[in-house]
């Protein structure tokens, strides 16, 4: 070190000062509070108002929640327990109604010893979806399938499935997971087969009925491939053959095979469905069907063929112009006038059809928004590559358009899932109102008003929030631009 300055300057600092902590008002929580909550007279007033409202909510709700009773056999008993513990004037939630009747909120009037079937159908749904939803993330997929399988098995066991049933559940789940891990391509086929498995599990009866319904699709596909040289005629012939098969033959064949090899589960009729089993059945079916239908409608609306375009526009505008409840009333009441007496056109199926049509019209517009957002160059590039219409849509246009539309699509899904509670108006037992009112109609739970709403609302929130989070995950995954 030089000592140049030793004589010229009286004092030179040769070490750095230790850093001072910033002033209290400029750091940490205080700074954040000052900047965000108390930055001016208006914000101070708003903050105080907000705190006051929070305090109001808390001071009214907290006593009610903290006095909650979970073990009682009637409202009267709840009131006694609360009065004994917190004084005669205390009020409190009587969540014992949930504990007592949770099975009806979840399963409706589904036979108690068959609860494992909807549980398995719901659990298997995740196995069916995982290869699609988590296509490029094996870790997430393994977490989802593993958790779903373990939970399904555990819940089925707790709900009293027999040994044989548990063994079958375990074999099915394990085989499916192995399939997903070993043969990803075949797992997609299993996903396509899932709806038929779910129908069989939920409604019971012989396995051959859903299988023969599936056979209709296979027949249509085979005919379409065989005649594919003839363009649109092949498609029409395939549709006709499938419809003929479903109307005339499939029932006979199913019954014929069932006589030899029954493969029967105890049948459960639609009026025994209720609660979340009903909501989820209608919701999942509606979601799964409305997406492809919505894509077709969106493409049809942008088509150059006037007839197809007009029909799509008419359909979409009609459906969007009519309230869902009107469609449900048509499904439940008006259709019966046109059916021959004694025909049993399942009410849940009717509702699923109407909900699907309703959601697909909205879906079509959401997807059309995505198609419209694509730069024209993408279409021209696809044409320049010599791709025909379907190939261009499949390889270039739709992957981009659907990606853009993800938030809108998931919004439609969530809205539709919540709309399933409207089936209360056609006499089905949705969990929110019909099931709650029905449970209140037993004298012991008369007066339990908020508790069922809170419980059902919480479950709806979990399911819808889950969908919403997944959509955000998907958006991050599919992000290709550098904005």
């Amino acid at each position, binding site marked *: 070190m030089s000592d140049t300055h030793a004589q010229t300057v009286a004092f030179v600092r040769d070490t750095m000062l230790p850093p001072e902590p910033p002033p209290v008002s400029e750091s940490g929580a205080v700074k954040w509070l000052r900047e965000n909550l108390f930055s001016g007279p208006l914000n101070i007033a708003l903050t105080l108002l907000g705190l006051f409202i929070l305090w109001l909510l808390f001071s009214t709700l907290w006593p009610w929640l903290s006095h909650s009773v979970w073990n009682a056999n009637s*409202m009267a008993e709840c*009131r006694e327990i609360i009065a004994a513990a917190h004084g005669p004037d205390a009020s409190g939630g009587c969540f014992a109604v949930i504990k*007592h*009747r949770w*099975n*009806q909120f979840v399963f*409706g*009037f589904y036979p*108690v010893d068959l609860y494992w079937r909807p549980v398995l159908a719901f659990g298997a749904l995740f196995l069916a979806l995982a290869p699609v939803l988590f296509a490029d993330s094996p870790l997430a997929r393994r977490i989802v399938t593993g958790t779903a399988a373990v939970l399904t098995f555990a819940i089925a066991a707790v709900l009293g499935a027999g040994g044989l049933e548990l063994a079958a559940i375990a074999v099915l789940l394990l085989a499916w997971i192995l399939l997903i891990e070993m043969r990803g391509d075949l797992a997609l086929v299993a996903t396509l087969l899932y709806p038929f498995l779910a129908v069989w599990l939920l409604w019971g009866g012989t396995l051959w009925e859903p299988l023969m319904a599936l056979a209709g699709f296979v027949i249509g596909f085979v005919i379409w491939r065989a005649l594919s040289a003839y363009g649109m*005629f092949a498609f*029409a012939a395939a*549709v*006709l053959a499938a*419809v003929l098969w479903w109307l005339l033959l499939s029932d006979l064949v199913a019954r014929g095979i069932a006589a030899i090899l029954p493969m029967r589960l105890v049948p459960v*009729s639609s*009026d*025994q469905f209720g609660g979340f089993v009903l909501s989820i059945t209608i919701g999942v079916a509606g979601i799964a069907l409305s997406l492809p239908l919505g894509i077709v409608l969106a493409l049809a609306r942008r088509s150059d063929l006037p007839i197809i375009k007009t029909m799509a526009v008419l359909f979409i505008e009609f459906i969007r112009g009519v309230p869902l409840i009107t469609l449900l*009333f048509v499904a*439940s*009441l*008006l259709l*019966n*006038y*046109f*059916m*021959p*007496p*004694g*025909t049993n056109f399942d009410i849940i199926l009717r509702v699923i059809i109407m909900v699907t049509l309703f959601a697909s019209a909205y879906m079509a517009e959401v997807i059309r928004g995505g198609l419209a957002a694509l730069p024209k160059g993408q279409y021209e590039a696809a044409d320049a590559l010599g791709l025909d219409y379907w190939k261009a849509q499949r390889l270039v246009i739709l992957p981009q358009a659907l990606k853009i539309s993800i938030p809108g699509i998931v919004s439609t899904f969530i809205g539709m899932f919540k709309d399933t509670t409207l089936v*209360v*108006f*056609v*006499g089905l*037992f949705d969990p929110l*109102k*019909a099931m*709650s*009112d*029905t*449970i*209140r*109609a*037993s*004298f012991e739970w*008369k*007066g339990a*008003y908020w508790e069922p709403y809170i419980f059902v609302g919480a479950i709806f929130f979990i399911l819808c929030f889950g969908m919403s989070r997944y959509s955000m995950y998907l958006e991050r995954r599919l992000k290709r631009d550098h904005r």
Partner: protein
Amino acid sequence: MKKSALFGSVTALALAATGAMAAEGDTLNEVKARGVMNCGVNTGLVGFAAPDANGNWTGFDVALCKAVAAAVLGDATKVKYVPTTGQTRFTALSSGEIDMLARNSTWTFQRDTDLKLDFVGVNYYDGQGFMVRKDLGVSSAKELEGATICIQTGTTTELNLADYFKANGMSYQPVNIDSNAEGEQQYMAAACDAYTTDASGLAATRAAFADPENHIILPEIISKEPLGPAVRHGDNNWGDIVRWTLNALVAAEEYGVTSANIDELAKSSQNPEVQRLLGTTDELGKMLGLDAEWAKRAIKVSGNYGEIFAATIGEQTPIGLARGLNAQWTQGGLLYAPPFR
């Protein structure tokens, strides 16, 4: 291709619709072929129709469904309960989704004629009343001038209320509600001074309150609400079956036939009316297209009218309704079954 398929299906639907009209009027055979009777009930009304924790329906109206099923099919469990709302109940009946409606529905002129229903009798004579908080200091409905009143929309009670206040030159402020549970909640939250609905419903509501002693049901009954089972117009035989099943339950009480002594009476009763009722002599059932023991089975399910009343809504139950108008004519009530002969 598509168009012809569309035309084809339209034609098929039209044919089917004519078929539906032609086949109308044979509910009995339809029910027998189906093996199950579809009975429209309330989606849940305390005491009248409600499923328990295991999903089994019980209640005053449900008992009638069971009785008819026992008479027609010989098995009271062969009933499919179709829960109907205030809006769907009549359409469900006329569209054939249900065979009979036992859903505390008021028998009115317009429903009987214009809606093409047949009310086959009355199983509960109700009337519209008011419930108020005691500290309101009101002891008569005539003092409700200017009151806010919770009222369920789309029901006859709404119209009765308007009529009553108009007739007495009073004004009121309606608070529209959608269901009984909501009405209770609004009333408890003091959103309305008075809650009005059928007196049976008021009694059940009051009994379920934490403090029933603080609420009174005003003495005035402002309307007639004869609640009864209904069937479709145009199938008189089926209407007869439901009507006489109800009459059988009422008559059984009059003659002292109970679920306990019915087997014994069928063998040994000397009363010719009882003998005809239970099919010991004469075959009244044949005239309905049923067998001789139809009424015996119907009564056996849950007893006679009095037993059903006592078990579901009577004074021994928490709902605690007195017989009142619903007593036998011999006891000063309105129940009067026509003779079985």
